[in-house]
């Protein structure tokens, strides 16, 4: 008997907890409001199913609990009921899947005008690279990484010379401009995760992954690593500031390009290394 009551309490408690708890996602700061809506819709559907199933169980336990002289019914199956339940479930599942896939299509379709921004992860810090005036990022290669070229940018590639390098510092982004985040790791898996942007993606050494979003709110947002990357994982934090156009431009002007950072003295040495690596591969 107590169990029937507890089952009801599980439903009531869970619903109340959901409605009243202060724990909910952080206010969104990107264009992915659709993700939030799909999530809320999923909460409604699954919440209804959970409540229905558990309350039905509670009723059964209450109504059909053993009493002296009681006998259970003998009913091996019911084609009709089983078909109906299957059908209703399939419809409910499709109702969640369809919007999900629709939004996923948007998530994986990067708008043409998105600016590329590169994030480079290593144990345990974040660095960034922005395309310079030419709007293009130069190529890169892990084998080129050394103290003078921490991101492994190809010194032979003219596109790379004006790339803006932000090593282990904050990233700034202009508001309302779509960005394609190109994600690269030089050692192990990491994951670039800013809760307010809703999007995230693993960074895999040996390849470049990506996602896109449009920042919709200015402010300071914390970057967390969301893929286990060794003992420093929980402490691998960074900052993304979403700025007005003006603030962004003035920040950008204070940054240095790859060419400025290497300086004429080191260019020769880096270029030799690049040739050696190219010959090896």
């Amino acid at each position, binding site marked *: 008997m107590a169990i029937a009551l507890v089952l009801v309490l599980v439903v009531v408690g869970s619903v109340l907890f959901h409605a009243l708890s202060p724990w909910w996602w952080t206010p969104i700061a990107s264009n992915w409001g*659709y993700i939030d809506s799909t999530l809320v819709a999923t909460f409604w559907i699954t919440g209804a199913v959970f409540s229905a199933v558990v309350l039905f169980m509670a009723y059964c336990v209450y109504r059909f609990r053993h009493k002296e002289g009681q006998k259970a*019914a*003998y009913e091996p199956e019911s084609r009709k009921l089983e078909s109906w339940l299957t059908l209703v479930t399939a419809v409910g599942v499709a109702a969640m899947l369809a919007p999900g896939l629709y939004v*996923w299509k948007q998530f994986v379709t990067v708008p043409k005008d998105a600016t590329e921004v590169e994030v480079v992860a290593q144990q345990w810090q974040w660095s960034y690279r922005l395309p310079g005036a030419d709007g293009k990022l130069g190529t890169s290669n892990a084998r080129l990484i050394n103290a003078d070229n921490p991101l492994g940018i190809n010194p032979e590639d003219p596109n790379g010379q004006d790339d803006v390098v932000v090593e282990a510092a904050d990233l700034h982004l202009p508001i309302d401009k779509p960005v394609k985040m190109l994600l690269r790791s*030089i*050692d192990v898996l990491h994951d670039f995760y800013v809760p307010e942007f809703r999007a995230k993606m693993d960074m895999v050494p040996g390849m470049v992954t990506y996602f896109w979003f449009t920042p919709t709110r200015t402010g300071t947002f914390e970057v967390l690593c969301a893929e286990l990357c060794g003992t420093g994982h929980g*402490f691998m934090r960074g900052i993304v500031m979403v700025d007005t156009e003006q603030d962004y431009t003035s920040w950008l002007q204070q940054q240095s390009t790859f060419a400025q950072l290497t300086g004429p003295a080191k260019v020769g040495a880096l270029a030799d290394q690049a040739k050696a690596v190219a010959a090896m591969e």
Partner: protein
Amino acid sequence: MVDVTPHGADLIPPAEVGEMELYHPHSWWTKYVFSQDAKVIAIQYSGTALAIGLVALVLSWLMRLQLGFPGTFDFITPEAYYQFMTMHGMIMVIYLLTALFLGGFGNYLIPLMVGARDMVFPYVNMLSYWIYLLAVLVLVASFFAPGGPTGAGWTLYPPQAILSGTPGGTGPGIILMLVSLILFIIGFTMGGLNYVVTVLQGRTRGMTLMRLPLTVWGIFTATVMALLAFPALFVACVMMLFDRAIGSSFFMPAIVEMGEQSPHNGGSPIMFQHLFWFFGHPEVYIVALPAFGIVSDLISTHARKNIFGYRMMVWAIVGIGALSFVVWAHHMYVSGMHPYFGFFFATTTLIIAVPTAIKVYNWVLTLWRGDIHLTIPMLFALAFIVTFVNGGLTGLFLGNVVVDVPLSDTMFVVAHFHMVMGVAPIMVVFGAVYHWYPKMTGRMLNEWMGRFHFWVTFIGAYLIFFPMHYVGLVGVPRRYPELGDTAFIPPSVHTLNEFITVAALTVGFAQLVFLFNLFWSIRHGKEAGDNPWRATTLEWQTAGTPPPHGNFGKELPVVYRWAYDYSVPGAAEDFIAQNDPGPATQGGPA
């Protein structure tokens, strides 16, 4: 109406092959230690699994202490946290649940339930256990190895798993882990082949496939799946071992490790993830399907009613088993694999929800118009349905690719998988132990300790894992030993974490009562008799309790009906055993 029985009583064909000579032990050693009797092997498997499971439980307390009260315990460094976490996850999934359901319940129940005297290959069956034990010992050894066990997460993702930034990565830790898994798989394969062949070839006369109890269907399907899935893990382990030990580069691209260029080149970390999850997703069902099967029998027996929609239940088990091989990459939506895979894997994943939902409907419909005895096994079965439905539904969030993006790698995932493959199957384990302990020992488990254990475990586990979803929703990532000062995490989350820790310690305490009960009741439990639950299946109709070597008397039982003839109208009692030629029913003699 339905035709669950192809054969009537007189149609049961005579045995085609005579009985094989059973191996008979001659000494104490061959009877109790190097035993070839599946029942002894089952108890060895279960005991070992519970012992190592206790280690995983203690590790969960240590993790929860750290999460609830960060900074209080100096010895829980981030390294230690990751080591606890990895060992906890790996032990729970593989060395406890897989071993217990297949090696424990599989060994005990398959021969008894299908009406066989033992497994088909008893010697190989014995080897299976000893290799499993060796795997466990190697795993335990890694705790004492220099540098400690691996802290790479139970997913063991390279490159970090074999690099210096991860505990045990460059020491023996990871090697012992991989070797232990390889041993486990070898041992499992020996047992697994036995379970499959015994179900297919060892059934007694009249025991058609569609008369098997769902417990056997669940364990059988899970074993077939495990035989297909474990090889993927096996090769992944071997390849990673090569990468780590002899400098190959299966999973290792050119990288810079702590400022040094590594000698590796050209490998693919994502390939490991595909191999891992090709094993890892079916693994979820390798644990779940035996639980599905067992819980069906618990509900039917204790509600004194046939399981509703038996044939649909069988097809759902087989369908889920098959589908679960084409959903693995839903664990990899944000792994960097080609994003278009998302469409395919989200669709297959949500399709699996349909047969899964059917199973849930049929369980609750079995309760409808039943004669529900609220015994401890029944209580645990009800708790299973609640937690399984809860965890299954949050799976719809994570399976629906785009909804997974904000939630993946957060505490929401941790809450989800604990609910669905931690708590739910464990509820069935408990239910099953209370149900079959009387058969294994001849005595009932103590009722009051049992009820205390049930209430604390069910309510406590729900209080641990339900609120945890919301911690994830806030955005707290998983695998973080502490949250530090993070602007978007309000202080109330820390309070909630303390609450969850207190709940976890309480639930942990209740498990000690359970363990005590297991030992105490061997001597002090109430006498059970042969069939205390008045159940239909063959294990309750043996020639004595606990069943003797060879299980049944001189003659093997002949089966006349399905396993679910409860409350048959007009029958003298509210159950008719499977080997009772008695009156004709829908599942009995035509």
